[in-house]
């Protein structure tokens, strides 16, 4: 009997060891990483197979590049490995000058126009995706930690409403697929829970890197709705809510997705 109790205790000990850290075990959310095939997972895990690392490497060069007569990102921010650690985790964040929430790519462009005094980079350009990937990569492994600025409460709430709003000719909301049917199939692909912890992401379907907004536009045209313009208020507010929804999940940038 004593032996029995001892083995139960040992088993409980083992369970505790497997489920640590405790918070993770209670969290039922699953990153898109968990539902993709082992071969694509291997591709993401290995930095030499992960094509997203090509963009990260591009970003590292741009970080140190002096633009025109101006100065480089590194001139003010120093070594990104130190200064940018955890920064991407809190975006989108409130910008007190513009008085609106801005995402990471908008922040990079604001830095260019305000401080470096150079033209903003176009959305989805190789340079902007490179810089954004490089900055976000510095937070890899850290939890998504949305900004707690009180100005963001209202926009985030509007983002949630958009998430729940039926739209498009198919009259679908994000909730119907990503909250109610994740894990089921849609035309042969697994419906993910729609977490935003790996952006910018290398998608095999795109054969390239893309931002969260590019992904959102895919979904919007999928339900046959008209996507709002790049970096419009609606898009950033939706990003804000999505970051809150993925809060605490580990950042995977650059993630690889099928």
């Amino acid at each position: 009997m004593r032996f029995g109790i001892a083995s139960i205790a040992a088993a409980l000990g083992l369970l505790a060891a497997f489920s640590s850290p405790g918070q993770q075990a209670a969290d039922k959310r699953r990153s898109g990483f968990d539902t993709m095939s082992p071969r694509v997972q291997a591709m993401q895990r290995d930095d030499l197979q992960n094509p997203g690392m090509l963009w990260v490497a591009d970003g590292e060069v741009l970080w140190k590049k002096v633009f025109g007569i101006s100065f480089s990102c590194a001139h003010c921010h120093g070594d990104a490995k130190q200064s940018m650690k955890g920064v991407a985790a809190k975006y989108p964040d409130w910008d007190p000058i513009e008085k609106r929430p801005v995402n990471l790519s908008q922040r990079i462009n604001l830095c260019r126009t305000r401080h470096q005094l150079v033209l903003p980079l176009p959305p989805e350009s190789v340079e902007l995706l490179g810089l954004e990937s490089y900055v976000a990569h510095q937070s890899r492994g850290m939890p998504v930690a949305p900004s707690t600025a009180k100005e963001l409460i209202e926009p985030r709430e509007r983002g949630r409403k958009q998430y729940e709003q039926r739209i498009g000719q198919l009259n679908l909301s994000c909730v119907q697929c990503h909250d109610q049917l994740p894990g089921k199939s849609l035309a042969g692909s697994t419906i993910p829970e729609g977490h935003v912890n790996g952006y910018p992401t290398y998608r095999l379907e795109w054969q390239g890197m893309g931002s969260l907004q590019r992904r959102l536009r895919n979904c919007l045209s999928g339900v046959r709705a008209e996507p709002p313009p790049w970096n419009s208020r609606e898009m950033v507010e939706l990003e804000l809510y999505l970051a809150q929804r993925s809060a605490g999940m580990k950042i995977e940038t650059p993630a690889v997705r099928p």
Partner: protein
Amino acid sequence: MARTLIHAPTTARKGEVIEIRTLIAHPMETGYRAGSDGRTLPRDIIRRFTCRYNDEVVFSADLYPAISANPYLAFNVVANASGTLSFSWEGDNGFAQTESAILTVA
């Protein structure tokens, strides 16, 4: 210049089988897709990859339009002498790139 990521060990024992992994940024445009204006995009692919070990070809591959963008190639080589591994990619529109790595065999 396209960006490349090459993983090759810098040291090896004589006779050891070493793994070499390469990744290069390239669109690998098939020549079958239509662009936003409806016209067919001209083909732009890497056609050949060659790895030379002290100027001797130890691995080569022909690439075709069905190969994905940013092609990743991994292969094994027997380390038998110290020297240089050179990697070259050649393709459409005069694309040519060569990278190299030094290998020391103890």
